[in-house]
């Protein structure tokens, strides 16, 4: 059943209004600016959340904005899959905005920062709710453009360079998507996302062309999803302020790429067609390569944020690999990892940011004994890191279990071996950080008062607790949610 509700529009427009208000306010009015930012992202979160029961009940919310031409227009269609991305981003956006207040306190250009920070929220919501490939493309580019100023916020030469790399990768990827929009529209006459895919009808006549389009789309969205060899913008973009790295490079941007891939898989091609076309195996090899090499490169990094960035590359591979299995348990594992990885990785980034704010240290070898000065921070870090390694009962194990089970049960054990290898590698690059922090002597002393500004500490600890709760109570929270998505796919 289809319904029209105002919430999608509210979610997309509120941040725009918020951004305008922040821009109009004077640079010195920090309190008001923070209030507007937090309120506008909270409104987004609440309006997304209010749609959850409707979507879980199996109804699809449609909002037609306007169309340029036949089959080409801005069109929102909130199905369970879009809801996953929408809910994850909007929830974490609230945390990240609160965190930004503490992080940005002593930085320059706070007004501009918050304008774009809030504005990108609207873009992310647009990506989540997009009902056809065209709308997805528009918001995808909108997201890239809004986040560009955030990446170059520091204004140094290095950040400008990274920014150029970032925007060129994004636009190039977008161009590939745009090209495939032409072809698909030409072939089928529509771009709307449908649960079973829309390309089935033309598959018999144009099988080569469809394969080409598949490659274009995967390359297009794969740039954002950091599939190797298209990943190199991601570590570079780590020059951004940490909340931006956290949100955009652990949650919104990279997940927008993965989300785009999931749309291609399940809403454009459909699971049956993909299995028929035999394209998944090549992609699986590329992804496995990405997972292993990404993890190996993470080991090599000596800067905390860079290590987290390479770890993201590997972890995003898990999500795509899970979806590639085209087997319910595996897809469940992949999709649930969108949520779990977001929660865990944002925690890790928040911790890295607090370390930078409080001590100014970025390199791993400077972090010996930091557990003494910032015990809560490093505990939260430990939760995030152990969670990504798949230690029970932190939520990462839920995804890992389903990915492994999917790999074994779908008959392709190679998937399972890749994931096992990668989790060992995860351990190799995360554990030394925790060990050094708590069990090596360093120059850190216990200090009076809270170890970090509370606007930063509270969201971080809350996220770490959330990660444990999502693990323990997964069969009441994340798993049923993803199972609704699976119903539309299988």
């Amino acid at each position, binding site marked *: 059943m289809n319904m029209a509700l105002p919430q999608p529009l509210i979610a997309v427009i509120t941040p725009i209004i918020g951004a305008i208000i922040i821009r109009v306010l004077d640079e010195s009015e920090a309190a008001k600016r923070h209030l507007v930012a937090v309120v506008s992202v909270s409104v987004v979160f609440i309006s997304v959340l209010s749609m959850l029961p409707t979507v879980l009940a199996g109804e699809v919310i449609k909002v037609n904005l306007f169309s340029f031409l036949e089959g080409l227009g801005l069109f929102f269609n909130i199905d369970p899959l879009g809801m996953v991305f929408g809910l994850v981003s909007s929830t974490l956006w609230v945390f990240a905005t609160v965190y930004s207040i503490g992080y940005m306190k002593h930085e320059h250009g706070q007004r501009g920062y918050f304008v774009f920070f809030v504005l990108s929220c609207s873009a992310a919501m647009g990506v989540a709710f997009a009902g056809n490939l065209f709308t997805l493309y528009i918001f995808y580019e909108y997201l890239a453009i809004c986040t560009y100023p955030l990446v170059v916020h520091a204004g140094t030469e290095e950040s400008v360079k990274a920014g150029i790399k970032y925007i060129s990768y994004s636009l190039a990827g977008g161009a590939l998507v745009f090209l495939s929009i032409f072809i698909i529209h030409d072939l089928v006459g529509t771009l709307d996302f449908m649960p079973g895919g829309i390309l089935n009808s033309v598959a018999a006549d144009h099988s080569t062309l469809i394969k080409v389009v598949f490659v274009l789309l995967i390359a297009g969205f794969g740039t954002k999803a950091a599939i190797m060899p298209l990943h190199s913008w991601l570590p570079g973009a780590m020059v951004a302020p940490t909340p931006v790295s956290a949100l955009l490079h652990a949650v919104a941007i990279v997940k927008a790429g993965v989300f785009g891939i999931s749309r291609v898989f399940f809403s454009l091609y459909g699971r049956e067609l993909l299995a028929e076309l035999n394209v998944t195996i090549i992609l699986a090899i590329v992804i496995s390569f990405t997972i292993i090499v990404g993890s190996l490169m993470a080991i090599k990094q000596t800067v905390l944020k860079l290590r987290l960035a390479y770890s993201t590359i590997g972890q995003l591979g898990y999500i795509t690999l899970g979806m590639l299995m085209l087997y319910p348990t595996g897809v469940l594992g992949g999709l649930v990892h969108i949520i779990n990885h977001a929660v865990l990785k944002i925690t890790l980034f928040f911790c890295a940011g607090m370390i930078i704010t409080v001590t100014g240290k970025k390199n791993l070898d400077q972090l010996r004994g930091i557990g003494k000065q910032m015990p809560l921070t490093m505990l939260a870090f430990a939760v995030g890191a*152990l969670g990504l*390694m*798949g*230690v*029970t*009962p932190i939520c990462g*194990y*839920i995804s*890992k*279990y389903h990915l*492994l*089970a999917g790999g*074994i*049960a779908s008959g392709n*054990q190679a998937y*399972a071996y890749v994931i*096992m290898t990668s*989790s*060992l590698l995860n*351990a190799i690059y995360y*554990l030394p950080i925790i*060990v050094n922090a*708590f*069990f*090596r*002597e360093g120059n850190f002393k216990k200090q009076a008062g809270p170890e970090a500004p509370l606007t930063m500490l509270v969201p971080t600890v809350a996220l770490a607790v959330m990660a444990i709760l999502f*693990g*323990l*109570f*997964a*069969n*009441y929270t994340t*798993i049923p949610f993803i199972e609704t998505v699976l119903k539309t796919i299988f």
Partner: protein
Amino acid sequence: MPQADLTISIIPALIVLSPLLGAGLTFLADRYQSRLRNATVIAGVLIPLLMTAYMYMVFQHQGVLYFKLNILPPTGLEFRVDSLSMYMTLLFTFFALVITVYTLGYYRDKEDGKVFFYILLLALGGCFGVVLSGNMFTFFLFFEFMSLMFFPMVAYKSTPESSAAGLKFFYMTIIAGVAMFWAVVVTYLDTGSTSFGAGGLFTSVSPLIFSAFICYLIALGIKSAMIPLHIWMADAYAAAPTPAATVSSAIMLKTGIVGIIRVIHDLYGLSYIQDVGWNNILLVLAIIGMLYGSVCAFAQDDLNRRLAYSGVAQIGYILLGISLLNELALVGAVYHIMAHAFMKGSLFLCAGVIYVNTGKTKISEMQGIGLQMPIIMLCFTIAAVSSVGIPPLNLFVSKWHLGLGAFEVGMPWVIAVLITSSLLNASYYFPISINAFLGCRELKNIERKRLRFQPLRIIPVIILALGAFIFTIAPFNWPLDLARNVAQLFF
């Protein structure tokens, strides 16, 4: 087993929870009311012991206790108390109390041991969870938690050696965790369950299932110091504070053993293992361990190291009893779990008292120490004699059953191995005692300083040393009775 036969009881969950809460309360007490600190620590381990005693009475009347929380997908958090869990919980909760009391004496300076108590209580909660768990997934959860908690205990002194030893253990724990995760996932996928009590879940043989078995052995073998996965142990025991080594030796090693029993009898099932013969892997490793551990122990001068290698040999006995797949041998193995805990526990506690009182860790420096600390060295001697298996001490009972079991399955040569290993035991323990009492010709070399009587340090040692023979000379050997019940469960 159908649900109807089980008594639903929340006690197992509470037993696991109370040390964890105890750790939290201790943390708060340290912050706000430091006078209450010792009370919260003791409460954290005393309450589980009392609850276990109560649970034992319920268990006697009503049989298997069961409790399931529908969290922690895919299998749910399950607790199940059968005779094996009952036996192990009695043992663990008792040792937890003794060791914790001892630790209060060991760390008399409150600042020094502050964090140690949090970790200790958390780790103990994990240990209780392991033996009370009702399926392999729950087992895995607690097993991993306990192992991760043991790492800071090893590294607690934060010297370079202890960090290195801790790291070695840590990495092995991670390998164990990954291996076990794989094994549990395979188990669950192949059989649709990981619950204990069904007497065997697997029905088919495939390379995948064999890989799971090997992964179980790796994961549990690392924890229980099975040859060749024992390599973390000597370094860890030498570098760790004594209470940590004791907890590991008396309690944590045993969780690995329980795991192996569970894997063989509950997941794979007796007839399955007999058909495929995978127990022979364990048998070979056990025999190598018994001899190799003893020979290595011989070569160590550091007391903790010698005890660690002796532990490798002792674990060999237990694994031998499990791998023979025979009821009498399993009685021996299960009894040996208890016997070894008392024996090795008291040896370690003695080593700890020697260390905190004199700072000595090398055996060669301990000449004449018996004149300075007669009670401690007497306890040490009792435990050492016990380890050789001289009747009527505890280890005689277990070795006797192991021998009988080996005889029954047609491997009488195993008895020769047992005797060889026992002789080696004697040859590396007795010289310590002899030197301690008689080794010093010139009495003036001995520090005649009278040591203050330290009840918290001495009484636990005496209790454990008493445990080395009290059951065998009593008219009714209670642990043996329990061990027989355990064996009956599986045969």
